[in-house]
């Protein structure tokens, strides 16, 4: 049985840029352990030679790829209205700091 530990959770927090409190970590470790135990039942089915599902399969006619041309679909101003911006560019804090890169 797969053991979901707090170390794994902390690694996932780092990967997904989410930080949990100690209480949240306790609850999440138990909760994710339970879900992973549940999904282990998939091991009952042999899928050795089964192809993976791909929703955009060839049997269904989908939109053809559009032409690679400039379209005026997305206007810049309404997008920038949602973020901090200067001169048409999104403002962020400095990436390079005295201590080196911030990440």
């Amino acid at each position, binding site marked *: 049985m797969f053991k979901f530990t707090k170390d794994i959770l902390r690694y996932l927090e780092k990967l*997904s840029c989410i930080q949990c409190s100690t209480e949240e970590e306790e609850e999440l470790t138990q909760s994710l352990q339970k879900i992973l135990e549940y999904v282990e039942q998939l091991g009952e089915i042999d899928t050795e030679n089964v192809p993976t599902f791909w929703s955009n399969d060839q049997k269904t006619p989908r939109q053809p790829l559009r032409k690679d041309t400039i379209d005026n679909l997305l206007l810049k101003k309404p997008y920038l209205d949602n973020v901090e911006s200067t001169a048409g560019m999104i403002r962020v804090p400095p990436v390079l700091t005295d201590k080196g890169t911030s990440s």
Partner: protein
Amino acid sequence: MKDLHTLSASKLHRLFLRGDLSAFEITNHFLARIEAHNDALGSFLKVHADKARKKACAIDERKARGLPLGKMAAIPVGIKDNTHIRGTITTCASKFLADYRAPFSATVVRLMEEAGAIPIGKTNLDEFSMGSSGENSAYAKSRNPWDLERTPGGSSGGSAAAVAARLVPIATGSDTGGSIRQPAAFCGIVGFKPTYGRVSRYGLIAFGSSMDQIGPLATCVEDAALMMEIIGRSCPHDPTTFDLPPETYLDLQKKDLEGKVVGVPWSFLHNLDPQSKQSFDSSVATLKDLGATIQEVDLDLLRYSIAVYYILATAEASTNLSRFDGIRYGKRSTKADSVEDIYQMSRNEGFGSEVKKRILLGTFVLSSGHQDEFYRKAQKMRFLMQEAFAEAFSACDYVVMPTSPVNAFPLGSFQDPFHMYLQDMFTIPANLACLPGISVPVPVAEGELPLGLQILGPQMRDAAVMQAAYAFECASSRIQIPRAFL
């Protein structure tokens, strides 16, 4: 007219065309209903009263001038608040998007507006559509108009409750694992999930991109068909939509199922509680009375649906929600002073606990060392499920099952969300296999909570599913309005 909220959207449209009602009159009536009842129900997060009245006046003027009118002219529509209406806030019921103003309209909104519909406001949902009870909204709990202490279902619970209580004649929902059909069943209305690719997802904030579909929540099948007639078409901005002409949904003539074969996966349904079993048996008897041949189909593999879904949907969610970082999208934390802090603190402050959990789970199943064991395995299982349905549909025209194993449960009754996940076992398969599915109310005794019958069809047979639901609806008793909202 005093009780025009008791009329269907199609009927309101016909009365408008005949000159018995104006678009302004209809819109005002529903705005007053929202004003009177929304505090109790928590169905709408935002009401666009001025815009709606302005639009209604414009439609009345078009009519007065003899200009062409669309098929949804004068019909107020509720829009689930994960779907964009240009220039208005789309919150996805998350604090993260509290101030996010949509820079464009979703294709479904544009198509309905072109057809004369009047978006009246944005309806409540579980945050980022993650939940089955409406309790995960960051703003307000949605409540069921049949019993305010119970859930309206989720994630499109706001839309379902609003339609059931007639605060709006019709609304949109989105369905990733049952989010249209389950709330429709809990609220005693009709909810339709189209085949994946039938309706454009452009302008819908993505949760599980390979499963998300927008569809109608309505008081009757005819209204659901009306909305599908407008929104069920290909879209150049969503490459997963079909490159096919739209189907015709409104040709609802046939009131029987003569010559049709209905498949029932009895073995998959063996754990139904007595009330659901009795109700389902009676629905199957109705289908038989309508002329259908009932045949058992083997869909036992579906018992793995929930496990497959919670791997794939969370994997897709963790990817889709990575864009909410406080820079590109989402409210930026005011406490952050470095880029890394912005990402982490904004996401911490912005996301609710269920969303965080699903992102972490999705990150896990996609992470190095676990991808084959979980994600790839689930994709293979999804392929097998699609094959199982294909085999079933080689022997029958429709597959039926209850929409949910239970009726609307009391708010707060699931302390452990995992047990709530298990309630989606009958709705998830259609999303995994990309099938069209509808929930139609089944007759229940006076005082009992609503239940739904789910009818599934093969991919791209959306109109056929609608037709079967229409026949069932004609043979069942009329849809009721909750007493407190008459």
